[in-house]
């Protein structure tokens, strides 16, 4: 079992697509809330092979895209305060109110791309006379690795390391979306990597309180097709339960060790999501015990007033799933991956970028 090529088998894909068509009768809107799913669905062209009554919507699943302008403005202010500012590469090009981390980098601000928090920690160790800040953007998938970096910094006595944390958690965002009442949804394609950490139990409220079926999905074409089949089956049978398709990585209770690490370092807090606004309890902030690693507390920076999203940009509506990228007047015309206007066109996991990059021939 190699776990990748087996899940791209064209013959099995055809059979699954046929089975979905055979059982699906009702109008069915399914939403994925994970950027990697958005990309995988677009890349394999799954939308094209769905029957007309099934619509696949994309939700706020890209951590880069949901990062609010105000958070980005603050990140840039911290970066410009003389520190070594480390970030995952995805954040570089996202436009803030005034510039982007990438633009600041070309004029000499010390911004470095890292592949893991431990790389950032290494930079801190190698530059004991400089402050090193890591820009913690992401969901539950990356939160444990951020937690480890703080625990490691503590253990190794590294004092010049801190994080600017705008991490978010997924279940409260799903509740907020449902409470907005804008969506007619028949099912959630639940995120695979996030669920590897938190398990599938945290989605129980979606089925109990909102009667919407949930299936945790893997990322290969066959994973997603099977997930759609499982969701359609529930819809047609009039059921609403939480199921796991991605059993090779996800259990109902999740990864307890990772959860404990997160809990040790972080507590939940209100957080601002682009397009949605403040969602109660949807963010992670550094606990008091670790607050000496909290860049927001360490650096008192002047942040210029945040500007609203550029005129005509529909990223907000797209992140809420009430508009498709091609409903935006800027999509593919004024806004392309080369000259992005909104964050959904910037991030490699952004909905607009995925729709544009893998558009239908």
């Amino acid at each position: 079992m190699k776990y990748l090529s087996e899940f791209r088998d064209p013959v099995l894909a055809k059979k699954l697509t046929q089975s979905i068509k055979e059982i699906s009768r009702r109008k069915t809107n399914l939403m994925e809330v994970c950027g990697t799913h958005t990309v995988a669905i677009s890349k394999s062209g799954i939308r094209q092979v769905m029957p007309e009554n099934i619509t696949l919507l994309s939700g706020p699943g890209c951590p880069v895209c949901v990062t609010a302008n105000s958070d980005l403005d603050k990140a840039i202010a911290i970066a410009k305060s003389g520190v070594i500012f480390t970030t995952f590469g995805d954040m570089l090009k996202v436009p803030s109110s005034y510039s982007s981390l990438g633009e600041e980098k070309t004029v000499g601000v010390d911004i470095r791309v890292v592949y893991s928090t431990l790389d950032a920690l290494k930079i801190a160790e190698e530059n004991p006379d400089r402050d090193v800040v890591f820009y913690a953007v992401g969901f539950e998938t990356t939160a444990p690795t951020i937690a480890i970096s703080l625990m490691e910094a503590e253990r190794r006595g590294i004092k010049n390391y801190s994080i600017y944390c705008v991490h978010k958690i997924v279940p409260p965002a799903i509740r907020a979306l449902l409470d907005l009442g804008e969506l007619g949804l028949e099912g959630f394609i639940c995120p695979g990597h996030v669920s590897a950490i938190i398990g599938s139990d945290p989605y129980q409220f979606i089925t109990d309180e909102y009667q919407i079926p949930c299936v945790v999905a893997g990322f290969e074409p066959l994973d997603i097709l099977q997930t759609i089949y499982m969701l359609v089956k529930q819809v047609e049978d009039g059921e609403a339960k939480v199921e796991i398709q991605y059993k090779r990585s996800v259990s109902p209770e999740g990864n307890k060790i990772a959860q404990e690490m997160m809990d040790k370092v972080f507590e939940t807090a209100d957080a601002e999501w682009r397009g949605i606004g403040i969602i109660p309890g949807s963010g992670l902030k550094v606990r008091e015990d670790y607050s000496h690693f909290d860049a927001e507390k360490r650096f008192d920076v002047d942040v210029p007033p945040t500007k609203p999203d550029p005129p005509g940009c529909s990223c907000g509506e797209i992140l809420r799933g009430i508009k498709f990228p091609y409903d935006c007047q800027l999509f593919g015309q004024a806004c392309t991956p080369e000259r992005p206007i909104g964050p959904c066109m910037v991030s490699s996991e952004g909905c607009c970028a995925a729709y544009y990059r893998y558009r239908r021939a």
Partner: protein
Amino acid sequence: MKKNRITLGHGGGGKLMHDLVEQFFVKKLSNPILDRLDDHATLEMGNCRLAFSTDSYVVNPIFFQGGDIGKLAICGTVNDVAMSGAIPKYLSAAFVIEEGLLMTDLEKVLDSMVKAAEEAGVQIVTGDTKVVEIGGADKLFINTAGVGAIPEGVNISGSNAKVGDKVILSGSIGDHGIAVISEREGLQFKTIVQSDCAPLNHLVADMLNVCPDIRALRDPTRGGLSSTLNEFATQSKVGISLEEDKIPIKEGVLGACEMLGYDPFHVANEGKLVAVVPPHKSEAILEAMRKNKYGKDSQIIGNVVDEPKGKVVVNTAVGATRILDMLIGEQLPRIC
């Protein structure tokens, strides 16, 4: 008013770099030979047609799994010359060295240049050395240029693809880019991916033996397979249709790409070629390629089609189609 500046993306081999080349270099330096925009220039000198090409190598780190900057500097230029159908013969080599480089490292690089040149059958006949202060370069940069004679009757260019032609790929994609990034970032994957860095001139000679009428040849380096195929489609004003499941990708590369969020179609190769060939000769060329060690995994991966012109279309595993775009900016900085 903001001043536009060069970003790493302008060197990534994708759309940004193509725009830079067209809007700056071609615009300022335009002449009929340069304007063809192949990886080599074709020069008429007396009765002889020469292929001439140059490339600079700035890879970080300078040593990686399957090769080093020296091997790369020879193979890269040999391949650029060979992709014209020419037999590469003479190379120049210029070195920009950062103060502090270990002599033993320089020696290792030179040894590997000698070895690669021997395998390719080329000689390094002229050179230059510069040393810059610490920070003025990163350890070692190498520029090589190469020339070779193009045999009579051979006319290879990215603008020659015709509807009905077959597209052949000489083996798995993405090996070099993933090998370098793994080495540089200290990423530990279960499978160690080796760079495919290799001189391909003998493979090209084997192909031309079977069919001198090869239309287009290119080595998909920075920007990967997608850049090369998009270049062919644009230059020849045709469409290219690919079968996704026919494209060989090693499990180690696939896994690393999944983890890093890269598309293997965009990841660099240094020992692969893509050929557009007449349909009736495709099987014979494929057979000849598979007999060469650098072409043993060759596959016919698609066709040249009439529409959509200038675009590459992928037929996916689930039976859908999608456009394969060029990489926009950089995916892996400084891989060659």
